[in-house]
């Protein structure tokens, strides 16, 4: 039998992961592991498709389709897909066999679902003593809100981020997508890697109960500490900052071209003023931070007038050369062309049987000896079912064909 499984290399090549659930918070943890060599088997079902396959544009050619969604494609690269109907007994049996040989289960069903399927961590521990299970959900598996369903975009608001985004005289602005999910992804990956160390030491597996809310408020901690100490509530301030002035985003030549500039001390202001060269920039009182703060509205207007006629690229280069903090406000297209991201190979291109060639963001960090890699695109639903069931679990061709006639592999 030919086993159609991609080759894996990397520091996590010995780690076997089985993934249940969908959307971002669980599967993106699997992505981080898979990009460093782990075998990650996604259990999917045609009967209950991952929301990232069905609910989120963009789709290739702007035509919705299970195998056309970028959201799924960028979250599940390097993985294997096995199609199993967990409502069928035989489907659950096969899932159990995969868990028996796994080091890690990642799941983000609503709390209790894995137990009801007979796949919960406690039940699996009797079959696999060394199993690490990561359960990640909105607010954790215990407490009064444990069973509250919700989307990451809303949880981002509950965790305080939305209140801090936008203009003080306007209602808050949304962050893009399920911002908080990807905070929980970093913490979730850390938790899994730490738990694997615990297993190495003790020989015994464990269960991680990760609350996306609890990881999100780590990114909120300074505002929370401030509230606890003084009772002061931090509010959105547009682009302003208490440590730098001016500190804003300015218009440049062209449609929606913006440049970020921030001035962190008096010396930097003098370098900036020298570069600007206009009379207002030379006003002696502006060399004092207190005066720049007092005149911040006026300064932003004057600087906007100065930047508006300049190309973003030449302005950024000029300011950086002068020793002034500056950066382009990169739009999504700019990111793919960004010289630094290109140099690091952060976006990697893969081929996909339906989507064709497309970009996948790889890890934001580079390991000197074993850098992470996007080796292949996301699987189609059940693409590796036969390879995994026959090649790994040892089913015969006849047994597999019999399952194909039933609802087990749907």
């Amino acid at each position, binding site marked *: 039998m030919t086993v159609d499984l991609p080759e894996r290399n990397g520091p996590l090549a010995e780690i076997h992961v089985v993934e249940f659930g969908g959307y*971002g918070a669980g599967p993106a943890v699997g992505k981080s592991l898979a990009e460093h060599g782990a075998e990650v088997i996604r259990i999917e079902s045609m009967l209950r498709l991952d929301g990232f396959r069905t609910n989120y544009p*963009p789709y290739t050619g*702007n035509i*919705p389709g299970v195998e056309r969604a*970028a*959201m799924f494609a960028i979250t599940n690269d390097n993985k294997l897909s096995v199609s199993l109907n967990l409502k069928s007994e035989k489907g659950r049996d096969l899932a159990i066999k995969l868990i028996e040989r796994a080091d890690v289960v990642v799941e983000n069903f609503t709390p209790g679902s894995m137990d009801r399927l007979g796949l919960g961590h406690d039940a699996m521990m009797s079959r696999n003593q060394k199993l690490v299970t990561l359960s990640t959900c909105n607010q*954790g598996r*215990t*407490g009064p809100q444990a069973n509250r*369903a919700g989307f990451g975009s*809303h949880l981002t*608001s509950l965790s*305080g981020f939305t209140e*801090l985004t*936008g203009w003080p005289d*306007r*209602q808050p*602005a*949304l*962050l893009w*997508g399920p*911002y908080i999910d990807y*905070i929980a992804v*970093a*913490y979730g990956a*850390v938790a899994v*890697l*730490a738990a694997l*160390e615990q297993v190495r030491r003790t020989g015994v597996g464990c269960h991680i109960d990760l609350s996306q809310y609890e990881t999100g*408020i780590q990114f909120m*901690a300074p505002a929370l*500490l401030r509230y*606890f*100490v003084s009772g002061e509530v*931090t*509010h959105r301030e547009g*682009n302003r*900052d*208490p440590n*730098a002035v001016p500190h804003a*985003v300015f218009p440049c030549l062209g449609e*929606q071209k913006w440049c970020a500039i921030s001035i962190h001390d008096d010396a930097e202001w003098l370098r900036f003023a020298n570069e600007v060269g206009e009379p207002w920039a030379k006003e002696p009182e502006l060399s004092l931070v207190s005066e720049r703060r007092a005149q911040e509205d006026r300064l932003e207007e004057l600087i906007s007038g100065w930047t508006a006629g300049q190309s973003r690229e030449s302005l950024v280069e000029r300011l950086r050369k002068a020793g002034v*903090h500056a*950066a*382009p*406000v990169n739009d999504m297209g700019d*990111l*793919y062309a*960004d*010289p630094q991201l290109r*140099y690091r190979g952060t*976006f990697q291109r893969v081929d996909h049987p339906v989507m064709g060639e497309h*970009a996948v*963001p790889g*890890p*934001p*960090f*580079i*390991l000197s000896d*074993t850098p992470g890699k996007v080796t292949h695109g996301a699987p189609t639903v059940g693409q590796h079912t036969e390879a995994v069931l026959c090649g790994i679990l040892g089913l015969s061709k006849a047994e597999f064909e019999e399952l194909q006639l039933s609802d087990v592999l749907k």
Partner: protein
Amino acid sequence: MAGSVEQTPAPLSGLRALDLTGELGWLLGRILADVGVEVQKIDPPGGDPGRNMEPVLEGPNGSVSASWVAYNMGKSRLDLDLGTVEGRERFLELAGEVDFILESEEPGVLDDLGIGWSILHERYPSLILTSVTPYGQDGPLAGVPASDLELMSAGGAVWLTGDADRPPVRMTLPQSICWAGSYAAVGTLIAHHHRQITGQGQHVDMSAQAGLLPALVHAPSFFDLLGENPLRAGGYLVGRNINGAAMRNIWPCRDGYVTWAIYGGAAGRQSNRGMVEWMDDNGMAPESLKSVDWSTFDVATVTLAEVSEMEAAIAAFLETVSKAEFLEQADARRLLGYVVSTAADIAADEQLEARQVWSESFVPELGQTLRFPDGWLKIDGIRHGVASSASGGM
């Protein structure tokens, strides 16, 4: 889960790290401490300049940066002047006693001091060095300074947020340092896993700019697949609908804002229906909304005009409810939404309290005990955190 102090050691207890980082790397060491690593923060003479960053906390003994306290909690401290020969010799000795070194200097600075990766790796082949910098160790932008605003801009996050009629905005609380620190922790632990197999350490090169890409989720893909650049839309959600309709997501209520949207899918249908029923119970659901057949409603293909009419009625209703009422009804009616919390709301949250997220530690710089978010790591029902770790306190 009784009590926050547990005898069970955290998973990485016994491992040690030297933390030379400034602001950009603080959270990396904090997360390693969260999972049990004993982290010693090395400060230059006169202390970490980041201690003075605004906003500062004021206590009976003095003031210190809120961000500095939050992300250095749980680390022990050592003053060491790496500008002197003795300081560097001491550092190289200490490096032999630890498993990780964390730093965020401009690329090349440690090499110039004679304590960079090549020296460390030669002396201590199993040591892991993690460097967190704005753009990474090499490449055209390596060494270009950047604060949060530049990183959020260069990383694509600023582009996506704000009102359409004003410049794009960054989140008021710096986030790039958090994305950089947390994903650097992932890279560091993957390198640790590799070391457990091979005995070899590695240099982990974290770029804070690249660290923002996870926060953008699928926004870049709109350009990759369709050549589109999603434009900031204030409190509206874009990118869910093939007609380009934006769905309202932020709604003023009596005492602040709530977040909720018209959705598709099974859960979305229940949520939409629940909202209309709640409005109807209060006599505020117009016939046009009551007559929508949610079982066939498709959020991906609805038109902007249809959405706007629905949203006008919902907005009028939500202005009459409080945040507390919204949370209560959202729970009872399975609405997909939450409130837009302030720090005060989070501090009072019953779920966080029930899950024992908060710890307290004495902060000498302030001269007072401080509450902070801690116990995110829960393994087998045991809550770990820096307040109960070996290094403890500040």
